[in-house]
Every structure is written in structure tokens, then in C-alpha cells.
């Protein structure tokens, strides 16, 4: 029930915003805030049930949707999706608060985006997953295309079309792969397919797995994005209106990494293991390339885009380490990165509103007049660069540990990325907030902005010092996924990993 509320209430208000509330902006804002808030409460209300048994599907609903091919509207939550859904709801509330002056359509599209993303995390039917996965493109198309701001050479229209065509092209082959799975297994129901795998009645030979895996991988790699599929990213983040930036940078990338973890590993373990080498290589390239390019970016949002490229490289590295620590770190980092990047985009939006642009050169010496803005920005930047006691540290540490089990070189190379992230974030902070000439004209955080950023800062610290509150539910699911990756494997796994699971707190 809670899940359905979190999924459908935004949809209802989206439809209302497009029709009845079209003309009354104030009403639309109230309704949107209400819908986003109730969704958040509903997603929090799911916690106890999931906590009890994280590997079991909670809040499961399954309704026949299409008779043939049998497609079910089948949704549910487990330990892996729980925090992702909650953070989606939270970031949507933040985004709605930050778009108080926008028109009804804008708010409506934001809510549709929320519904789409929650749907992706909750879908238990492969076809339904695909529908939600593609549905998220529609609100982005209008939010970015209609409300985006040209940034330098990148026009918002060009960035929108680029984003759309890239991600759309990436995912069409996944539909073909899903269809193949359906024709083979007789069902789109993911849990059912996994049960068949477990019972041994459904097996994909390594030769079958490879093309299927690559089709899934391509869709998720473009969405994440993983180097070299990131061409759409910087323009998109730079031109997106700030509230969209919060949701897009914070969450859309997670659709890709979530898909890798949820589907690619259990369904195609042979292929995934076979490809792990070069995928980890790409992840390292993403980490280093993203960080190096971020250093030289003159624009805060572009810098954050490349920082995301780098950080999501960590997540992919963790997933393809095939070690429980790596998987846990990846799952944890998905949530942490959503919180941190969401916060950074809120603040970037605040800065952009003050100065009309996000060019770093437009700023300098802000800190003396804007202590709150400067402090929150510093906390978010430090969290993003992996300072211990803040959230990203936990995830990145676990990932590095997992990567070290997969190969020490990976961990060493990725470690350089952590250092580089401190370089670009702190240097950006220094150029923006510090400096010899104090900025007298810029205002500090308003109450509304403080309300938006507050919960995110609290979460950064909470998730940093007390990961035991969050990690175990994810870890339980990851254990199961790791178990599943050994089930569909035809050859024996070379070196069974001996080390005990070590959690990072």
C-alpha cells in the first residue's frame, strides 16, 4: 500500500498539474509539495517491514496488466531498493521546494520523473522495469528542453536531444534481450525467472549470456554513464534547470548502476565475470578521466557532471569486483552519492540564482558574507571527496576494499581518484568562496533554501558516522545476489573468496 502511494500519488498530481491546476501555480505548488511529502512519508513507512526481512519482497503487489505476452504490474521493495526509493522521494521534495516560483507544468513533470524513478526501483517485472526506465525520458525531455538554460556553447535543446537519443538508443537492445529472456523462460516476472534459475530449470549457456549481458550493459552504461558513453552528460547537467539537476544528477545515474547490480549480475553471471576485467578497466578510466577533466572545468555544474562520472565509476568498480564488500560499497555509495550530489546541485542552483551563471570565475570571496552557504557547501564538498565521518567515505572505502580483492591494481588506481576528487572540489570551493576580495552583494541561504538543504546535510553526517543503520539491509540483498551469481555459472569459480565480510564502520 505504501509503495503504491509513493508511486501513484505523484502520477495523480502530475495529471492534475497538466490539466486542472495548469493555470493556478500556487495551488499546483501546494499539491506537488503535498504529493512529494506524502510519497516521502510513505517510503519511510516501508522501512520497518523491509528491515524485518530485507531479502524478501515487501509491499509486493502484482496485477495482471496485459494477457499476452503475460505482463504483470508487479512491484515490491527489498533492502536494495528501499533506500534508493526513500532518497528519490527526499530529493523530489527538495527539488519541489527549490522550484517554488516555477509554473505548474514544471512541477508536474518533476512528479512524473519521481514516479518513473520510483517505478524503476520497485519494478519486479522486466517489461515493467523497461517501461518505467523509458518513461523517465519523457519528463526530462520537457524539463530540460523547455526550461533549460543555454550554457556556453551547449544549447539546452541540443543537450536534450543528445541525452534523449543516447539513452534511448542505449536501451532499445535491452528490450530485445528481455524479449529473448521471456521467450526462453516463459515469463517476464523477475522473481519467477530467478526461481527457475535456482531450480535449475532455466539455464543460459555462456554463449547466450554474452550478447544478452552486453545488451543490458549498454543500456545501463549509457544511463550511468560509464566512460566512454558519457558524451551526453556534461551538457545535460550544465543546461538542466537546477531542480531537474538535483534529481537527474542525484538519481538518474543510479538507474544504471541499480540495473547492473539487480539484473546483470544474477541473470548473466558467466558473462559478467568474463567481462569484469575490461569493465573494471572502464570504471578506472571513468574515475581518473572524470576527475582530471573536472579539475579544469570552468563551470560548477560541468565540474559536478564530471565528478559524477568519476564517482559512479567507483560504483561500477564495486559491482564488478564480485566481492561482498564491493557490492555493499556500491549499494551504499549509490545512496550516498544521491544525497551528496543532490545537495551540491541545490547549492549550485542557489549560486546560479544569485549570479545568473555557474561560471566559477563569476564568484570569489563569498564566504565572509554567506557563512551558511559556505559551510553547507564545504560539508557537501568534503563529503563528496570522501572525508571520513561523512557518507561517501563509507561507500568508497568498501568499494576500494572489494576492488582490492578483485585485483590490487584496481584499488590503487581508484585510490588516486579519491585524491583527485579532493583536488577539484576544494579548488573549486577556494575559488568560489574564498579569495582576497570579499563579495558583499550576495545573499546567504534563505529559509526555504535552508529547509531544502538541511535534511541532506544531516543525512551526510548520519550516513557517515552510523552506517550500521543503513548498510545491513543492503548487504543482505547483496549476499543473495552474490549467491545467485554462483548459481547460473557453468564453470567453477576459480578462487572462492575466503575473506569474511567486513563492514566499514
Amino acid at each position, binding site marked *: 500500500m505504501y509503495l503504491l502511494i509513493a508511486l501513484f500519488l505523484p502520477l495523480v498530481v502530475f495529471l492534475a498539474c497538466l490539466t486542472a491546476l495548469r493555470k493556478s501555480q500556487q495551488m499546483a505548488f501546494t499539491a506537488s509539495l503535498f504529493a512529494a511529502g506524502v510519497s516521502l512519508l510513505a517510503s519511510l513507512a516501508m522501512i520497518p517491514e523491509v528491515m524485518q526481512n530485507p531479502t524478501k519482497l515487501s509491499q509486493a503487489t502484482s496485477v495482471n496488466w496485459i494477457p499476452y505476452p503475460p505482463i504483470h504490474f508487479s512491484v515490491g521493495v527489498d533492502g536494495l531498493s528501499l533506500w534508493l526509493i526513500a532518497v528519490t522521494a527526499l530529493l523530489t521534495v527538495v527539488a519541489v521546494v527549490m522550484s517554488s516560483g516555477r509554473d505548474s507544468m514544471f512541477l508536474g513533470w518533476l512528479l512524473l520523473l519521481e514516479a518513473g524513478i520510483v517505478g524503476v526501483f520497485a519494478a519486479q517485472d522486466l517489461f515493467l522495469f523497461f517501461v518505467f526506465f*523509458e518513461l523517465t525520458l519523457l519528463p526530462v525531455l520537457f524539463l530540460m528542453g523547455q526550461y533549460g538554460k543555454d550554457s556556453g556553447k551547449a544549447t539546452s535543446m541540443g543537450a536534450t536531444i543528445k541525452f*534523449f*537519443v543516447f539513452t534511448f538508443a542505449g536501451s532499445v537492445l535491452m528490450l*530485445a534481450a528481455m524479449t529473448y529472456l521471456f521467450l526462453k523462460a516463459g515469463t517476464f516476472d523477475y522473481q519467477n525467472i530467478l526461481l527457475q534459475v535456482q531450480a535449475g530449470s532455466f539455464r543460459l549457456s555462456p554463449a547466450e549470456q554474452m550478447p544478452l549481458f552486453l545488451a543490458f550493459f549498454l543500456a545501463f552504461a549509457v544511463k550511468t554513464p560509464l566512460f566512454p558513453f558519457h558524451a551526453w552528460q556534461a551538457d545535460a547537467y550544465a543546461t538542466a534547470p537546477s531542480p531537474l539537476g538535483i534529481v537527474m544528477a542525484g538519481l538518474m545515474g543510479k538507474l544504471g548502476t541499480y540495473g547492473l547490480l539487480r539484473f546483470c549480475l544474477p541473470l548473466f553471471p558467466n558473462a559478467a565475470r568474463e567481462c569484469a576485467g575490461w569493465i573494471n578497466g572502464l570504471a578506472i578510466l571513468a574515475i581518473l578521466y572524470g576527475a582530471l577533466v573536472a579539475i579544469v572545468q570552468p563551470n560548477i555544474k560541468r565540474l559536478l557532471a564530471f565528478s559524477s562520472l568519476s564517482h559512479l565509476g567507483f560504483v561500477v568498480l564495486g559491482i564488478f569486483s564480485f566481492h561482498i564488500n564491493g557490492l555493499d560499497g556500491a549499494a551504499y555509495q549509490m545512496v550516498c552519492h544521491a544525497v551528496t550530489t543532490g545537495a551540491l546541485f541545490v547549492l549550485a542552483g542557489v549560486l546560479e540564482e544569485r549570479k545568473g551563471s555557474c561560471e566559477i570565475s563569476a564568484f570569489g570571496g563569498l564566504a565572509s558574507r554567506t557563512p551558511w552557504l559556505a559551510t553547507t557547501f564545504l560539508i557537501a564538498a568534503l563529503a563528496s571527496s570522501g572525508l571520513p565521518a561523512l557518507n561517501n567515505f563509507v561507500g568508497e572505502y568498501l568499494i576500494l576494499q572489494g576492488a582490492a580483492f578483485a585485483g590490487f591494481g584496481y584499488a590503487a588506481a581508484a585510490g588516486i581518484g579519491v585524491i583527485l576528487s579532493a583536488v577539484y572540489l576544494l579548488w573549486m570551493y577556494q575559488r568560489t568562496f574564498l579569495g582576497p576580495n570579499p563579495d558583499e552583494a550576495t545573499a546567504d541561504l534563505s529559509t526555504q533554501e535552508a529547509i531544502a538543504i538541511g535534511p541532506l546535510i544531516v543525512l551526510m553526517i548520519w550516513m557517515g558516522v552510523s552506517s550500521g543503520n543503513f548498510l545491513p539491509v543492503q548487504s543482505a540483498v547483496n549476499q543473495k545476489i552474490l549467491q545467485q551469481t554462483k548459481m547460473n555459472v557453468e564453470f567453477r569459480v576459480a578462487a572462492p573468496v575466503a575473506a569474511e565480510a567486513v563492514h566499514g564502520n
Partner: protein
Amino acid sequence: MGTNVMPSGEELLRFLPEMILAIFAVLVMLWESRHDEHGERPGMPAFALIGLGLAAAASIVAGAAPGYAFRNMLVVDSFATFFRLLLMGIGAMAVMTASPFLRARKAEGGEYYSLILLSLIGQSLMAASNELIMVFIGIEISSISSYVLAGYLKDDKRVNESALKYFLLGSFATGFLLYGVSWIYGLTGSTNLNEIASILGNADIAPDAVLTGAATALILAGLCFKVSAFPFQSWAPDVYQGAATPVGAFLSAAPKAAAFATLLRVFLTAFDPMADRWLPLLIVVALLTMVIGNLAALWQTDVKRILGYSSIANAGYVLVAVAAHSTLGISAVLFYLAAYSVMNFGAFAVVSLREETELKDFEGLAKRQPATAALMTVFMASLIGLPMTAGFFGKFYIFQSAIDAELYWLAGLGLLTSAVAAFYYLRVIAAMYMKPSPEGAPEMAVPAASQQAVMFVAAALTIGFGIFPGWLLDWATRSSGLLR
């Protein structure tokens, strides 16, 4: 069959839809002549619509008792009934879109409605013919009316060019078809699809495989022209762009649907025994049609031309399902043709609201006419194949049938070209929503009630079939069994 010449009542019933259309085609003309040549001549579209409604009802009644008619020349099965109803629906949309369009140009004449009905007779015959000569007659009735329709606004230079091009190339293609039919008759001694199948299927009496192959290729070439498949696709954008917009909409839907019906029936009945010979050819044709249609559309700057190339690409998708050579494939074809007719007609109906159809004339439309822009967005989203639209399920069923038939490469490459296609449909959405209104932008005509009805019904069906495709798919599946 016996020797009596008089057809039985049952046989006449199976031919009733065509007879009704013929009667109403004449009635419309007579009705027009009752009125002064320069005055108002109301009621003609209503006449046409009544005729279409009665013909549709007759199709349903006739479809309830499947069987042959006129010495096996016609076959009325659920497949034919599906196409008849689809064609009547397309005809109704063509009438409703055109009536205000033509009135605004002071060009409304009874012959337009009459020609639409006559053209539908031919197409309905094509869907139900069980005989190569009947196929030819159906195609000719359909084509000759279509040629005249393409040149309907005869004072416009582009319209004339369009009609002439359509006529010359179309006649040429029909020649191919007829030549192929004569070869088949020479080789097998029959033009009946079932008899041809039994002769070709019997190794003892089957004629020379090379010659039959050549004859099959000739017939395929003729039909490829009609569905605008590679390498006979180049006429489509010119004709659809040049013809009056409602005519373009009709031409891109009805004759194509009928040609696909013929293609399926002829190749899955008569030439089924030699499927392993023509399937590879069809696969190549399908692939190249998708590639050429989608790539050529990328550079177009006129919305009608974009829709023209898009119709080529869509023919390619349908051919993929034909190449799947299975019941699943046939039902995918039927579903897609229905979905395509609706979304494509909707898009054409929006375009018909304005004189100029350059992409830049659509800039900023969302600000000026939000409802029209929103409707156009629905049709474009469906043509892209976004979820929650009919086009999405249509493509899904097509590529599902291809994967089921183990045509993995065809399915993969087809899906990739359909992703490329997203670009040019997006350009239309981008022009409407993401570009400012240019100075002195042309106002779109306020849509008349009948045009609004077409657009809204098309949009409702596009979304409706996108959320609940079950009913249409069910019908398509029940209609996919050919009477052989």
C-alpha cells in the same frame, strides 16, 4: 462449386461491403449534382460516413460466417474482416479530416468522397482476394482512384507533380506484378492461391524453381512498391508531400495496409511452400527499408516529408514481422498497422491544419496552441515508440515475433534504426516546445469539429492501446489465421 452461374446469397453477403461502398460512391456524386455548382453542398461527408458505417457493419456480419465466394475468387476470413474494418476506419478519418480542409480551400467536391470510397473498394478486395487476378483488379481499382486523389487539388503545381509521379511509377510497378502473375499462370496453370500452393508444394509436379523464384520476385517487387519498401520507396515522400495533406494521410495508411494484407496472403498461402527462397530476400528488403527510411528522414526539414520517410521506415518494421513468417508475426503486423494508421493519421491531421508544413513553421507552437502541440506530441511519442503509446507495443510485438523466429540480427539492427528515428521525431517536438515563436508566425487554423474529433480520438486510441493493448492484440491474434 457446381456449374450454376448465379452466386448464392451467402456469397453475395461476403461481397456486400464492396457493393455498399460502390452504391454510396455513386450516391455521393448524384447528391452533389442536385446542388448548384457554386453554392453550398452540405451532406456529402455525411453520406460517405454512412456508407462507410454500413460497409463496416456488413463486414462484421459477413465475417461472422467465414468462407469463399465466387468460385474461390474471394475469401472472407477473420483476416480479411480485420483489414476491411481497419480500412473503413481509415476512410472515415480521411473523410472527416478532409471535409473542413477542402471547404477552406473551396475545393470540396463529391468526387473526393467518391474516390475515397472507390479506392476503399479496391483495397477491401485486395484484403479478401484469393486469386492473383483478383489481387490485380483490387490493386488497380485502389491505385487508379489513388492517382486521381493524389492530384485532387489540381491548381497546385506540386500536387500535379505528385500525382504524375505516383501514376507513372505506380503503373510501372503494377506492370511488374502483372508480369509475375502471368509467369505464375504459365508455370502452374492456375491463378488461385490455394491451387498454386498445392502445385508448388508437390515436388513431383512443381515447376522449375528458378523460374518460379523469378516470378515470385516480380510479384514481390510490385508489392514492395505499394508498401514503399526498398528499393521502390523513393516516390513516397514526394507523393505524400505534394498531395493535399488529408490525401497524403489516406495514401500513407489505406493502400499500404491493403498491400500488406495482399503480401501476407499471397506469400503465406500461394508461395508458402517456397518460403525458404523468398524469406532471405524479404529480410534484406526489411532491413534496408528501415535503414534508408530512418536515415533519409534525419535531414528533412518539412514535417510532411518527415512523415513520408517515416512511413517508409514503418513499412520496414512491418516487413520484419512478415519475415518472421509465423502466426505471431501476422498478429504483430495487424496490430502495428492498426496502431500506425491511428498515430500517423493523427499526425497528418495536425499537419493539415496549416498551409505551410516546414519544420520552422511549428516553432513555438506550444505557446500559441498548447492543445494542438500536445496532441502532436502524443503522436510523435508513439511514432518514436515511447512506453504508454500504441507505437511502443506495436514495435514490441514486431520485434518479439522476429526474436521468436530467431532473426536476432534483424531485430537488433531494426531496433537500433528505430532509436535513430527518435531523433527526427524529436525535432518536431523540439520545434514546438523548445524554440521561441518566430516573428509573425503563421496562425494555425482553428480545427473544425470533425478534425478535432479525428485528432482527439486518434490520441485517445494511441494512448489507450499503449496502456491496454490487450483488446487490440487479442483481435489481431484471432484474425491472424489465414483461411487456406
